[in-house]
């Protein structure tokens, strides 16, 4: 689920947590590692990736957005 944080690049600065408009990313309890706490509430806006000073974030779209299927209402 988006975003995906590469642990080996992440310095734990917390920038991504502040960049997320949806409160999806939280630093863990020790404040050292960002976790994607509410992945289903991601808007895929890319703010976290743009602001990450280490380039540690990639966006991986979920399966539900990759398959063009389902009833279009109306």
């Amino acid at each position: 689920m988006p975003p995906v944080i590469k642990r080996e690049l992440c310095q734990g600065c917390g920038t991504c947590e502040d960049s997320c408009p949806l409160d999806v990313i939280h630093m863990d309890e020790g404040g050292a590692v960002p976790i994607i706490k509410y992945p289903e509430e991601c808007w895929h806006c890319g703010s976290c990736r743009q602001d990450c000073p280490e380039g540690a974030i990639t966006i991986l779209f979920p399966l539900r957005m990759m398959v063009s299927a389902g009833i279009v209402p109306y």
Partner: protein
Amino acid sequence: MDTEHLQTDILIIGGGVAGLNAALTARESGQDVLIMDKAVIERSGHAAGGIDHFCAYLETGPDWDTGEAYLNMTARGARGATDISVVERIYCDELKGAIQRFEDINCTLRQPDGTFFRTQSYGQPGPFYINFNGKRMKPLLGRAAREAGCRVLDRVVTGDLLVRDGEVCGAAGFHIREGRFYVIHSKAVILATGGTNRLYQNPTGLSFNCWMCPANTGDGEAMAFRAGARLANVEYIRMSVVPRGFSAAGLNALVGMGARLINGREEEFMERYDPRGMQGPRYKLVQGVLGELKAHRGPVYIDCRHLDPEAMRHLVTTLSYDKDTLPDYFEQKNIDLTRDLMEIATSEGMQGGPSEVCGSGIKIDQDCATSVPGLFAAGNSADQCRSLHMAVTSGIHAGRMASAYSMDRGKPAPVQGRQVDEIRDRLFAPMEGAGSVSWREFEDVLQRTLTEGMGPVRSAWGMEKTWNNLDLIEKWKDRVRVDDYHGLLRVQEVHNMMTVARCMIKAAMFREESRFGPCHFRLDFPETDDERWLGQILVKRDGKGQPCTEFLPISYD
């Protein structure tokens, strides 16, 4: 939990584009400013991740490049929803300052060679859209607001406005991580909370995969309504045309650069729906896509294969300014616009204004003032404002007019303790509830019933059924339980969406005609009736807190 009291001249609720522009102008007028936002203002609101176009006339000589031509377009495109005297005062009077504001915050609208790159779409008389790189606009605006001395409460969601003797005197809310309760005492309040999204089912099943920002849940509209202000244009449903699977912005860039919509037989079809074809308004494009699918001529695609390499390069770049992750989506879905057709669909519905330049929500006058003294509104939460150009100009104007109001006041009116207690008890109740319903289930049933009865095909009986369903859903309100302050934020959002939905249904039932294609189409009144319905439906609360409607005629000479 802790309660903190703060005092300011002007409280701005919502630190998006409109709110931060209001803040900067109010600071320039020497006012003390406090901004509250659910997120952190450098990346909050609809333009958080970037934006690519700003609508402007530049008076370069031709007839189309004038304020008069812009106002004519607005009056023609939003007949019955727009008040030209308000738009002229807000947009035309503040446009030069708005363009300067972009320079001031170091986010120019110009290309590197100093020129404006202008494109045309959605029925404009000429190329009104300035394409620009707005990916860092929000961080730059946020920094400018802090450097100008605005106080900022990040991650504080507003629960309700404080009203004393019919005047707004502040607001109260809570911190979405720590739960601290804030009471702000102010001389004036500017609501700039954006539109209302997450109201309708999302075709992917992901509620937050929506076209506009999913944090914008009608909070300002609902608070204004509860405080006694009038709403307008809320009967309209807005949709867009999006890549199937990803409700991403970017249609203006595609249309502006010459992309075509085609059906499953590879036929262009838009001229069946509008004589302007691909240059018709957005709702006509939506109507065309729905029409082709209904006639079993789908799937429907966007075709860019004919664009020359230069135009294609510009298009791909611009798309990423508007939706940063769209290139990633294309890559992961293996779509190459130079080679492939891209399947598209209509987006989820949302409550929104009927045209690119006309909004919906809190009814404002020429001063961005609402019908409640001390309460102003700007941006997408205001009935006359839509898109970036209106967010910036109405923000500036609201900041200016709220400052003038504030300077005439001695100090904030004293807050009533009882009202503060009521707001706090209501906001925190789901933390203590014994129920078993999650906010997601609450949101899901709301979306299901609105999708069924309040979509682009409406009828009296269908809307009545939806209204009754909302009664039923509301009876379960006390059974919603959350475990943390993040959940408390979400349930608060669903309550506000429910309030906007009620207003939407009442207004749509009252408007016994059809207007703006799928934005308000009634099976039982399929024609547009200018004799009876050329104007706005105003919604306000009655003595029991329920929405009541009245009609405000508007003339267009």
